[in-house]
């Protein structure tokens, strides 16, 4: 998907929230949805199971209005984290302009995080996308949990952030870190607008 359409003067950013099951991807979108003025947001579409797990994906369109003459829209997607929804993950990932990897900070979830991050790279590789060229930020969610239960941001950086991309601690349920993450990924994505593609 092209980020900018000069003919129709539209900028459309597709950002996918990726990560293991229950790490808080949908919660991120819910928080953003709750904070966006009504006239800027479309309906949030969630296809969830009865137990509130994301079955297919969530989709939140944001209309940021006219910026420099361009109608600017963000489309935020989540993928289902559970391992068995591989096909849906691949589909949602198609044409993504940027990826937010939402990791669960809990100590016991570290393996799931690593597995999901590897899955992300594998899925990108399958679509012939060099993972190093895709704008990516990491979010370490649930940093509000008691210190004994979670890894610190430094520890998580060591374990997951081998590319040295921007990373953010967050408490998606209450908001801290959610918009910081969104701003972080937006900045990386929008760099692609410049002639050099932000290289």
């Amino acid at each position, binding site marked *: 998907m092209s980020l900018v359409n000069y003919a129709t003067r539209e900028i459309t950013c597709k950002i996918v929230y990726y990560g293991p099951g229950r790490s808080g991807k949908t919660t991120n979108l819910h928080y953003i949805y709750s904070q966006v003025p009504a006239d800027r947001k479309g309906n949030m579409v969630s296809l969830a199971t009865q137990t509130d797990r994301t079955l297919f994906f969530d989709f939140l369109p944001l209309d940021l209005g006219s910026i420099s003459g361009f109608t600017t829209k963000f489309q935020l997607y989540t993928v289902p984290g559970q391992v068995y929804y591989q096909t849906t993950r691949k589909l949602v990932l198609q044409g993504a302009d940027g990826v937010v990897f939402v990791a669960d900070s809990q100590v016991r979830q570290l393996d799931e995080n690593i597995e999901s991050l590897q899955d992300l790279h594998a899925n990108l590789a399958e679509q012939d996308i060099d993972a190093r060229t895709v704008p990516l930020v990491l979010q370490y969610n649930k940093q509000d949990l008691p210190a004994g239960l979670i890894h610190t941001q430094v520890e998580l950086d060591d374990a997951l952030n081998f590319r040295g991309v921007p990373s953010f601690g967050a408490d998606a349920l209450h908001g801290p870190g959610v918009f910081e993450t969104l*701003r972080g990924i937006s*900045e990386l994505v929008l760099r692609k*607008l410049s002639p050099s593609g932000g290289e």
Partner: protein
Amino acid sequence: MQLDNRYRFETLVVGSANRLAVAAARAVAEAPGTVYNPLFVYGASGLGKTHLLGGIGQLARALHPNLTVEYVTLVDLVEQHHAAVAQGATDSWTARWTDVGVMLIDDLQFLTGRRETQTELLKLFASMQQRTRQLVMTSDRPPSEIADVDERLIARLGGGLVVDIGSPDYETRAAILRTVAAERDFEVPDELLNELARIEFRNVRELQGALNRLVAHRSLGTGELRLDDVLRALGLEVPAPAARRSVDDFESFLADVTSAVQQHVETWKSRLSEAIAYWAGEGYRTALLDRAFALPSQPDVDELLDAFAKSVERLRKLEARAASVDPSLGGQEAFRDPDQVERAAELVSRAEAGELPPPGPSPAFVRALFEVSTSNLLAAKAADAVAEHPGKRYNPLLLHGPSGVGKTHLAHAIGNEIAARSGGALSVACVPAQRFVDELIAAIGSGTVERWRARYRAADVLILDDVQFLSGKERTQEELFHVFNTLHASGRQLVLTSDQPPRRIPDIEERLRSRFDGGLVVPIEPPDRLLRERIAARTLAQHGHDADAEVVRVLADQPVHNVRELVGVVHRVLAAADAAGVTPTPAFTRRELGPVVRPTPSRVTMRAADSAFLDREKVVWDWPDTHARLIEELR
């Protein structure tokens, strides 16, 4: 209307929500008519749109003292227009506004439903833009969302730059409060203003109102005033700390995105896309500019846009020249593609040399779609014979009948058939008589009668629709007489239509009337029952509905006088069915159309029905004094 002197750019607080609008407004004021024309600013009430218009007006006046700058609200403009219409002075109304250098129109959303004004504005805007007069408009919604507005007008409104003004962010609100407080000499501590700015007022007016109430409250109160007291005094809820923080979240995200876009977007592509949107809005093809996006390296945009504008200018001049030869050439596609200027130039030289054939038949009217039954059988057969042997069988062929029975359709169909059978070798001129008259008048005015005459004399087939409009047009009749003779003498076909037979057309010269009568004069009657059924079935099928026999019968039962009315009835039923989300059934159709009311047969039809009724003595209700006569007979 007077511009409010308080509304200047210097007093306008600029924030992320209005930065683009203000930048565009300044650019427009500095170089009216050249950058964004029209500039369309939209945003909710109280966000500073009128202030922005004022700013443009004041700056444009200061920089261009010779330029007329006018500010008007749409409602005033409409009222002035109505007054001009009432006084029969619409021309002077148009002239007054066309000469304005910068026209600032406020509250354009009130255009909704004012069709007449829309038409006038469309003409006015087109004429102003042609003269590079600047238009700036504001509305509370974007052009596409103003309800019930002519699409051509919407396209024109959106053809320049459309930019929105959003609600001010926290920093802007704080700056506005400080500016207003300073302007009015209110002494309010900064921290109190900052706290007040945290409240998400929907617009600047509410914000200023809150400040006024705060100051009033303060002047009456005693002691230190805290924000919570102020909020209560203003009737507002005290916001929770978390809510305040989150608002900043989204706004700072938006500010980040805005600055990233501004920083990274390639300005040349941005300029090019704006130019494309502008020229596309003006109705020109922009493929020439579109191709520039695909170039491997950045082109010289100035040169490209300059060349494009010059091509457009050349096309406009060519179009004007073409229209002076033949008004029908104005607005043709050939004058809309700056890629094809040479083709347009060739068209103009051919038109000026009288080489272009007159307009041909409409491809929409084909013979296959002309349903035939008893009421039009003779006409259809004659038409087929003419199409098969043009100029040899019935020349001229004159079709006559009441309005809406298909005369025009059949006449055009003959033209299309002849053109198709000859493989395009025969040139078919097909023109409504009224236009024939208009063309002659224009040709007389421009001294090009010879050229006009030559075009028609060069035609292989001449189809003249609605010749009754030639009634009383002596000069046109004379011209037609000569054209008729030229064509007829060389065995070229003439087809004429009229709403009545030649002998009944008033004010037609005898020499022309006798020529009309000299070929075959054939009537087309109002559609009979079978024809009505066929037409109803075909119209239903054209709209993707299976022609249910009973529905067709109900439709054919309707008391219509011509084909057009019948098609209208079918469309009405289909629209009602669409609205109700159902397929039209016989019951639905009957319900929608109501009971069939047959008009009482008029005296004339009764007479036509039975010659016995021609005798007044035999028609009981025509007897004078029936009562007395009955008694007399009985005696």
